[in-house]
């Protein structure tokens, strides 16, 4: 290098050296409950690690196998062996992971040796499937099949029942015993099984429903009802409480970044959907995920996926598992949005395999692409040439631009989906 300093020209020799990456390769180990990053020289310096090899744990999912291990793994630990086999880089840890999660005969416990602030610690980790089990539903109790509002004295006087109080029926749910018994909107319930029911204020707004819930399931209730100025007795069979949205079964797909729940009686009632309408309701959609980029929205009722009927969360799961096996370029969803059907579609980027893929699929894909998770020397050289921190070809920067492109393509409000890229 020839340079000028204070009018003098001088020449010196500079020896270049390979530019090291700041951040190592990252991966999520769902079955083990942590995410991790390849240790790089910079990472080792910054974190004052003992060695420049191994895999640094970056996060631990609460309650997961890593957190439940004794002692538990923590962010900052550096894994350097699995079941006595050394782990020097991410590829080694990925291989060890996939060998165990895709092999039913593998030992249930995994011996993990790691470095924690200079201490060599060993722990056993018990892998488990991601079992997002829904909590049980409420115990079924007796239900009347109507919605009510408390009728307090002021309102009662306006309605022509001065001095009375009770529960005015605001909705008689279709296909219920209440509808069959002939209860009507506007009827005022003032007694139950011979006992007076009289709310004293809004603080008693649930009194009737509560009294009903104490009765036997499938029992008979006799209501004293005010109708058209007359008092009459109406006998009807009670029925079990219906499942509410809070209790509905749920399913979440991490690849499509889509959360759905089963359709309830009350969803049908609010949307005026008949009993023969079946599907799952979209609750959450990650806007930059495959489903979000494909145009699915919260509130959509998914009726079909790639031609397969979706009746509930079980068939929803089966349909998605099927498309993940087949990996088609485009997946059409038939959804009911309000009163109209729409046909959004997703075009997942199946390759490279995502971190969220199912273990079985991962194993298959890895078998097909044996070097997929290994560091590609050419790629490493390319990244080195671009400098530390440069985005990889499939990095977040690419995802954002993909999302931006997709958003623009979908902004016309058409039903068509757009290409969705999964990083």
């Amino acid at each position: 290098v020839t340079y000028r300093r204070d009018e003098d020209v001088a020449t010196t020799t500079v020896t270049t050296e390979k530019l090291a990456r700041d951040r190592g390769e990252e991966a999520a180990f769902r079955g083990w409950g942590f995410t991790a990053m390849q240790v790089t020289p910079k990472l080792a310096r910054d974190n004052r690690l003992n060695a420049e090899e191994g895999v640094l744990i970056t996060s631990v999912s609460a309650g997961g196998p890593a957190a439940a291990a004794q002692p538990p793994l923590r962010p900052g630990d550096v894994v350097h062996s699995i079941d006595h086999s050394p782990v020097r880089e991410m590829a080694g840890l990925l291989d060890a992971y996939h060998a165990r999660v895709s092999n039913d005969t593998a030992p249930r416990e995994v011996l993990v040796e790691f470095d924690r602030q200079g201490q060599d610690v060993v722990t056993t980790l018990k892998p488990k499937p991601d079992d997002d089990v829904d909590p049980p539903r409420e115990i079924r109790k007796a239900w009347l099949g109507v919605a009510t509002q408390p009728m307090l004295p002021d309102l009662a006087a306006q309605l022509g029942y001065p001095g009375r109080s009770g529960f005015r029926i605001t909705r008689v749910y279709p296909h219920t015993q209440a509808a069959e018994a002939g209860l009507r909107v506007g009827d005022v319930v003032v007694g139950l099984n011979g006992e007076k029911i009289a709310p004293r204020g809004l603080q008693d707004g649930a009194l009737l429903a509560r009294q009903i819930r104490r009765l036997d399931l499938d029992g008979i209730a006799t209501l004293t009802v005010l109708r058209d100025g007359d008092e009459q007795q109406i006998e009807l069979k009670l029925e079990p409480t219906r499942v509410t949205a809070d209790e509905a079964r749920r399913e979440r797909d991490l690849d499509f970044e889509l959360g759905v729940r089963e359709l309830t009686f009350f969803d049908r009632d609010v949307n005026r959907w008949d009993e023969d309408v079946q599907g799952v309701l979209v609750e959450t959609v990650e806007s930059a995920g495959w489903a979000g980029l494909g145009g699915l929205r919260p509130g959509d009722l998914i009726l079909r996926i790639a031609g397969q009927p979706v009746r509930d969360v079980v068939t929803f799961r089966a349909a998605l598992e099927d498309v993940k096996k087949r990996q088609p370029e485009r997946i059409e969803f038939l959804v009911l949005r309000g009163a109209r059907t729409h046909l959004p579609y997703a075009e997942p980027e199946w390759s490279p395999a995502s971190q969220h893929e199912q273990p079985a699929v991962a194993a298959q894909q890895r078998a097909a692409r044996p070097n997929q998770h290994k560091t590609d020397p050419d790629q490493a050289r390319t990244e080195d040439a671009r400098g530390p921190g440069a985005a990889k070809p499939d990095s977040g920067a690419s995802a954002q631009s993909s999302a931006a492109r997709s958003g623009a393509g979908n902004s016309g409000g058409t039903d068509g989906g757009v290409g969705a890229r999964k990083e």
Partner: protein
Amino acid sequence: MSHWNRSLALNLSTALLMSTGLAATAAPAGSESGNDAAAARQARTSERGALTREYQQLRDTFRDALVTIRFVMKIEDPMGGFAGENEIAGVIISADGAVLCSNLMLGGNGGQAVQGRCVPTDIKVHPRDCADGLDARFVARDSELDLAWLKIQAAPGRKFACIDLTGTTGAPTPQLGERVLGLGLMGRYFGQEVLVTESRVVGRTHKPRDLYVIRGALDTDPGLPVFTADGQVLGFACIQSPDPQEFAPGTNYAAVIARGRGLILPLQTVRMATRRALGTDEAGAKAVAQ
């Protein structure tokens, strides 16, 4: 005379003796007043002994049925949510490992309409003699009663110490002012030590349902049993919150909830709910089958 009545009578007589005894302390030994003072001291000693035995007996009889429940609470909301480990107390209610605890403490919403939801996962029940814990399944819940039922898994043939709720009759009905005893459970960090505290029944409410109201020094956990002074199960501590439609606009929710603590669900209510939850009677089988 029942044990608690005897205790109450003893308390009253002790109070009387103390008031006279204090005045008599200066009287010479051997005099009539001196004899009264000695009798008072003896009564106090006797009462202390009775209370100690009462506490010890309650603790020793029921402590093996008390368990620590560990679980991961996943909180799902539209903004993403998070997960964290929790630890609560519960009680084994059948020899085959059914466990009762508070639904609210286990992430229930008490029937309130809330955004997102809490899902308890990775549930483990820790009896006193089992540090590792036993996997448990969440079987049923009743939000309005604040009860949740779990079932210990993978302990075939094991008979657990329990507070049996399968009986159908014989529930005590305490009077206003009656002494009650409660068991509390310190967490695993403190070796799951059992606490015995006492208080009195200060009221009874029928809305939203039959409940005994306890105030004072009772230190128990929601979901744990409360006893009469002679060791009968009176009911279970619970938290009660109003139905959503019973909140008037602007209601101080925290104040209402605070009022809903220190309540005891009568034993009969819990028995009936348990039969439904575990499907051990016809109505329960129907409820479970729905």
